[in-house]
């Protein structure tokens, strides 16, 4: 098992995280035991962050003990791995608008002690601003909306200075007709209001028309 980043491991072109609750699966993934430690396999076709790791992300935004703001948590596939990475000391605030998706996430949050579920529109930061006494160390967003970059910029107030963020941009939900790089450059311009752009990763073999943009708050 080779260490890629803090809490992220790889072996034979596959990516793993240490299982926070040994013996428990979240979405039917493989469990691997090496030297007495249990790892969960991370599916790149189901998680955009893992896809980015596989396509050459140079920096990981999550680390153990971090406070993370996760926008667009959905049913908690990626969230469970983020929860593995930050460990018991970390906090993951999961924001999603859908009650039906939150049903599964709430069950996950009952088990995992570092998850904080919030049902809210990610555009309305005032709904969950009060929960952040200390500003977040990292911010991740996976929302397929037309104004996805704008939502990310609005939430930037909850991220500490110099904190890392990552946003998965789906170009098809912004414009069907425009070329995808055209759309991406427009979104990057919006992000540059609050962030410095560090890297752009194309998620092509795993997700079509998707990019992951790695940013650092100014």
């Amino acid at each position, binding site marked *: 098992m080779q260490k890629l980043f803090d809490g992220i491991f790889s072996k034979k072109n596959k990516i793993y995280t240490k299982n926070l609750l040994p013996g428990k699966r979240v979405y039917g993934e493989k469990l691997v035991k090496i030297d007495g430690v249990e790892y969960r396999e991370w599916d790149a076709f189901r998680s955009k962050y893992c896809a980015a790791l596989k396509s*050459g992300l140079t920096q990981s935004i999550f680390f153990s003990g971090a406070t993370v703001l996760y926008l667009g948590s959905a049913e908690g596939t990626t969230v469970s791995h983020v929860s593995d990475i930050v460990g018991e000391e970390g906090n993951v605030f999961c924001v999603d608008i859908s009650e039906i998706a939150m049903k599964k996430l709430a069950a996950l949050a009952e088990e995992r*002690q570092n998850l904080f579920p919030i049902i809210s529109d990610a555009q309305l930061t005032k709904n969950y601003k009060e929960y952040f006494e200390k500003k977040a160390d990292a911010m991740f967003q996976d929302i397929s909306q037309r104004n996805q970059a704008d939502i990310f910029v609005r939430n930037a107030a909850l991220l500490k200075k110099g904190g890392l963020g990552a946003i998965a941009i789906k170009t098809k939900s912004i414009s069907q007709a425009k070329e995808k790089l055209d759309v991406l450059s427009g979104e990057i311009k919006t992000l540059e209001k609050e962030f410095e752009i560090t890297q752009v990763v194309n998620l092509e073999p795993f997700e079509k028309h998707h990019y992951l943009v790695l940013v650092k708050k100014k």
Partner: protein
Amino acid sequence: MDARVELRKKLLKKTKEQMNEKFAGKEIHIIKAVRLLSDLDSINNLMSENASEWKLREPRGEAADAFTELNENTERIASEKKKLMEFIEKEMDAEFPNFSIIATPVLGAKLLASAGSKKRLCFMPASTIQVLGAEKALFAHLRKKANSPKHGHLFNHPLMQKLPRFKRGKVARIIAGKLSIALKQDYFNGENTSKNVLAELEKEIAKIAAEPVTPKQEQREKVLIEQHTEGAKKETSEKSRTWTPEERRAYFAEKNKTSGSGDGPRQTPFKRNEGNTWQKPHHESRHFGGGGFAPRGERSERPAFGRNENKSKSFGKGRFNKPKHSFMKF
């Protein structure tokens, strides 16, 4: 540490409350049931069609077993449909006492499904209720100068049956107006006046049905029927005709003379679908045997990096991502 545990408990409790609130509404079950009903309709049709076809071939032996099972399943689906209808009627009566009597329960449930939720439906204006279920026609009308739809789901209303085309719009408008009022009564727990309203409606519509047909209406009906039969054929034959390069050039030369320096969207000799903008002229040119569709000056401008996108295979591959595009400075 304690504060963190407390915050977590508080958030878990709050999300549960929010979820319970969301799932407490009864209308979601009506919507699910009515969608299932329309699916079951088509399933039932398919199965009974298969059964009747098979029966003619006189199945024997193992085939007979399969055939009887098919028959049983068809019957079971029919009974499920019946039960669903009863469920919808019961629930609609409880949720919308006024609305379900004027609209009939299943039609009301369809309108509810189109609107999405009880609150949304109840706050809709009558004109929107009138065209619910005719979204395709409505947006075609807003975009392409097509005729506006007269009715959506309301077409299946029992009072709308047997009316000629030119009277349906008027009647749909009247019914939608009454429905809108009934919905507001239901939402704000108003009086139950639906039976009187329904009787009034029937009278009014009978009066409209008895009105004599004016010559203008007759003329319009003739034109419409013509459009739907012979006119349609003509249009398609015009569309499928191939244009020679000379014809095409002459057409555009004339266009340029009349419309000046070619500002605004380019015109084509055919009616094109809206939304298909001139993003990919190279695709279009194939239809006309190559050589480009329009004179050179009229080619649409596209950014250079969009065109070369497929060539830059290094982007997005490899362990370290080094974008080569000039517009990315990092």
